[in-house]
């Protein structure tokens, strides 16, 4: 039986989504806030605030570690609820899962996140762990590469990394944290997603009662949008660090500003098919580069939405930077559209969607991505995929502009003699 997601809009502006599956033993609860690493500024009660890197992530730590209940990780653990938080480029998520104490957990989560309790002292206490986290990321090849790519992609939006630098974290003040909180953490900017085995009425009552106890925000706010041009900031970047191999990544910045949520959903599927077709195991470039010894492993590829752009990353471990990047650019200029492979990919996607209900995680993550990244408040269905056509696929991809990219390299650092 395919379960549907039920949507409930609350009077305070928060939206609740519920996916009930009573064949499961577990319930997952996610509270999402539309504030991520890419958010740069806002106006709160007519005062403008700029947000450096790391603030969204910092707030996540602050609210978890210094809630009115204490450290939420420990509070939930006492009730046998596994919990954590995560901050991405576009949103922040607080979540827990468990078998018992679900409604208690929901009540605590809503109140802890929606009623700020942190002090100036707590701002200082939160910093050391994040600074250690930053140092850890500086030792991570993939994190360093990701930061370099983001830095090179954006001209006007000064976004490099979700967690920021040590200097940026040290500069966070109570005033800035409180202003960001007051702007972004209002109920109208939140969503709740409950998935698993729960009593619908009981959960809805708990949510409504919890939010009823939260004072309405009295401030007005709006996000400051930054008009980001299509051209990348820098065409090339290089970092040297300890590594077994060189890694080269070609990242494309593609405008999707005028795409509607349903178009973004379709594009999400079509881009997966396109990348597999042109860079996957069945592609000419993969076979040519492997045979010639240019690459030793596969070609990695991923796409994601960042602001008004679709970012496409194509990566390989290779010492032959020029050969690899020329090959990638050549494919992107004249890509292949194979109808047989399209049909195979489409069938694979239908199967993946049909088996999703087996694992709650396979429902939660795609839905939250659809909702918070694409603005599409539904779970993709087999019927959505069934409706895809080869001609639409070709047209949507061909309408994209692949002329802007940046090439970023992680180069092996020479060992000290």
């Amino acid at each position, binding site marked *: 039986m395919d379960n549907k997601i039920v949507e409930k809009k609350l009077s305070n502006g928060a939206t609740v989504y519920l996916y009930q599956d009573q064949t499961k033993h577990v319930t997952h609860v996610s509270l999402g806030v539309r504030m991520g690493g890419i958010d740069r500024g806002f106006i709160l009660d007519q005062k403008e605030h700029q947000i450096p890197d790391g603030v969204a992530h910092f707030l996540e730590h602050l609210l978890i570690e210094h809630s009115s209940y204490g450290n939420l990780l420990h509070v939930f653990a006492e009730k046998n609820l596994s919990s954590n938080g995560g901050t991405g480029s576009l949103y922040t998520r607080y979540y827990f*899962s468990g078998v018992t104490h679900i409604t208690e957990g929901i009540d605590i989560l809503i109140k802890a996140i929606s009623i700020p309790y942190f002090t100036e002292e707590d701002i200082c206490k939160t910093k050391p762990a994040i600074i250690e986290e930053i140092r850890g990321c500086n*030792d991570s090849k993939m994190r360093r590469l990701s930061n370099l790519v983001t830095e090179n992609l954006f001209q006007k939006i000064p976004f490099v990394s979700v967690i920021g630098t040590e200097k940026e974290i040290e500069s966070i003040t109570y005033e800035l944290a409180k202003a960001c909180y007051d702007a972004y953490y209002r109920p109208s900017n939140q969503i709740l997603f409950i998935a698993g085995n729960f009593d619908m009425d009981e959960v809805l009552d708990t949510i409504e009662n919890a939010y009823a106890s939260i004072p309405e925000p009295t401030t007005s706010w709006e996000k400051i949008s930054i008009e980001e041009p299509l051209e990348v900031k820098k065409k090339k970047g290089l970092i040297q660090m300890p590594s*077994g191999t060189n890694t080269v990544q070609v990242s494309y910045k593609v405008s999707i500003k005028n795409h509607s949520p349903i178009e973004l959903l379709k594009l999400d599927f079509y881009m997966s098919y396109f990348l597999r077709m042109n860079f996957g195991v069945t592609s000419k470039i993969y076979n040519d580069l492997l045979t010639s010894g240019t690459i030793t492993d596969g070609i990695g590829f991923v796409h994601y939405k960042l602001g008004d752009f679709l970012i496409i990353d194509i990566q390989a471990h290779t010492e032959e930077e020029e050969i690899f990047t020329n090959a990638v650019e050549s494919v992107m200029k004249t890509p292949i559209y194979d109808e047989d492979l399209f049909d195979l990919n489409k069938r694979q996607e239908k199967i993946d969607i*049909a088996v999703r209900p087996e*694992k709650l995680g396979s429902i939660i993550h795609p839905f939250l991505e659809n909702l918070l990244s694409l603005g599409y408040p539904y779970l993709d269905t087999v019927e959505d995929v069934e409706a895809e056509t080869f001609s639409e696929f070709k047209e949507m991809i061909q309408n994209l502009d692949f002329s802007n990219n940046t090439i970023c390299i992680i180069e092996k650092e020479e060992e000290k003699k």
Partner: protein
Amino acid sequence: MNQSKTNLYKTENFRTILVQLIFPFISKKEELAASILLPHLLVHTSKKYPTEESFYKKIMENAILEMSCYRERIGKQQFYQVMLEIPDEFVLKEEILEKAISFLIDALYQPNVIEDAFNEDQFQLERKSLQSRVKNNVKNIYGYSYNAILDLVDTDGYLIENLEHNLEQLDSVTAKDVYTFYKKNIQNIEPYVFVFGNVETQKIEKILEKTVYKNQFPRKIIDKPFTCYLERAAKETIYKNDTGPYHQSYLAYAFKVEDMKEEDRPLLSLVYRLLTGDCSNLLHKKLRDEKDLVYSAKSTVFHQNGMLFIMALIHRKNKEKACEAIMETVEQLKNKELIETLLDKLKEENRIDIEKWKDNKHFLASEEIDIYFGFDQRAEELYKQRWQHTAEDVTRFLDRLKLDVVYYLEGEKDGQ
């Protein structure tokens, strides 16, 4: 029909069918590279589909969600675990079970071999890919440090039997060597078969008779010990300092259980949970919440080796404080009152975990395999054994938990 050969676990709770084949084997040290390369050569191409492209297309046509082969070790026993995952016919609305299993069996028993060796081009690709992965692993702070610790704690040669310690073997192994290894351990050998999902007994038996059991190959016996308890590296604790080009520094404490026996496993597990379990989490509370020394500190337990590691990534200026904090945490384990309270909480946490795992088909399938071979017991049984112990038992057990090695890798980049 060989009904007793197939281990079928029929369940309607999932939408996929898992077919797992277990090939036990024993390899010598000089066969390490061959034994690790072999699985890669079996699931990317075959005689019938000699290119990755044709093989992958066939995987998609057969609606195979996953097809993989891994080398596993439990103590001194090694085996290949081959896994096939397909949607069940109620999801797909077409019959693919026989086609998918036939494809898998064909790949396993008709591999991409030319003149008594694996296809040279494919072999070189797989070897280069592994070389690349190993080189990257030993360059990152975790891989480098972990292998450095293994060097120090491994008094048997068991743990360092990995590619990171045997890169020269990976460089020199040939396609013929790997095929020789294949002939000894897969060709003409029948695997143990486990099927998990919504499938009728008669139907699956019929398919397996036509495919896996067709040639009536013999099965290998699993007869090696499932443990390899390690002796202490030296009478006194070994302190090893190292440096590396990293922003963080790595601190690890390796403990070994003196005269480790099977019945000590629940207690070792309890110590691990006290240090790292959600509702206890002594390490996190001490090193992060109380002392601001880490982003994360964790412990890892090696049941088969009678070992426990505590690891933390720190700033080098905090080395002394971190060492003190770790030993303070270990001392806390001797506080009976505290441990009694925590044991009650952890017991409930474990009970809840067992409920959660019922939603995880891979956990359930692995559990059945573990029970069949005697690698482990059912989660409910382990639960009973674990929670019969008291705080007194834990504190007494701690007398046998000896600090074997302290490893410290200082990051030279000093957070810059």
